[in-house]
């Protein structure tokens, strides 16, 4: 049986993702209001979720920098599903947004990291079409969390 802290953290994590789905980077205050929980409890939950690597906070704040697959700030990666668009942290996360939403179709927009050419990919029927591209992952898995924003 999960304890109260674990249950609160699960609710907070889902409320964060739902906030993104609904259209904006959720704040600690909006999550607390959505759950009807004291902001102080939600603040500590944010900190636990960050320690557990479920989210990434801007250092020294309770502002959400990342809640994968969502990015808390505009990035070079955007996923559009059924007319709604979100920023993602990388190409993996951009493709993760429709995967998380159970959406078979999506458009991914980004740029070539070398020449800045605009690129798009269409995810449809289990396949990928669009611009000819390849994926490069610079950081080995064992070092992802040394600097997760760069990763």
């Amino acid at each position, binding site marked *: 049986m999960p304890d109260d802290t674990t249950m609160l953290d699960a609710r907070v994590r889902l409320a964060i993702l739902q906030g993104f789905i609904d259209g904006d980077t959720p704040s600690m205050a909006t999550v607390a209001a959505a759950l009807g929980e004291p902001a102080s409890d939600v603040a500590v939950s944010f900190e636990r979720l960050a320690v557990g690597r479920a989210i990434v906070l801007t250092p020294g704040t309770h502002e959400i920098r990342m809640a994968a697959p969502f990015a808390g700030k505009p990035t070079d990666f955007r996923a559009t599903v059924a007319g709604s668009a979100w920023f993602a942290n990388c190409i993996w996360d951009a493709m*993760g947004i429709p995967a998380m939403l159970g959406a078979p179709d999506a458009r991914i927009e980004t740029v070539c*990291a070398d020449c800045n050419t605009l690129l798009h990919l269409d995810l449809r029927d289990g396949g990928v079409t669009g611009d000819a591209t390849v994926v490069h992952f610079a950081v080995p898995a064992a070092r992802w969390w040394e600097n997760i924003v760069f990763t």
Partner: protein
Amino acid sequence: MRLFRSEEHIDRHNAATGQPRGAVFSVEQCRELAQRWFADRLAPDWRRRTPDEAHAIFAAAGLTGPFWRLTPP
């Protein structure tokens, strides 16, 4: 993890930034990875994957080898 127009663009970018070449793979593999990695993210009882679970997902997308090891074998 970023997208490039070709492997030549990866090499040019790495030469300009002094960044070593990492893992290069297809967008289809990336989609497979994303599908398996994020499909359960909205489950109420979601938890971070263990290294073994993560390695299994990487392998299912054809991503194997030392680069993809979260922990020493």
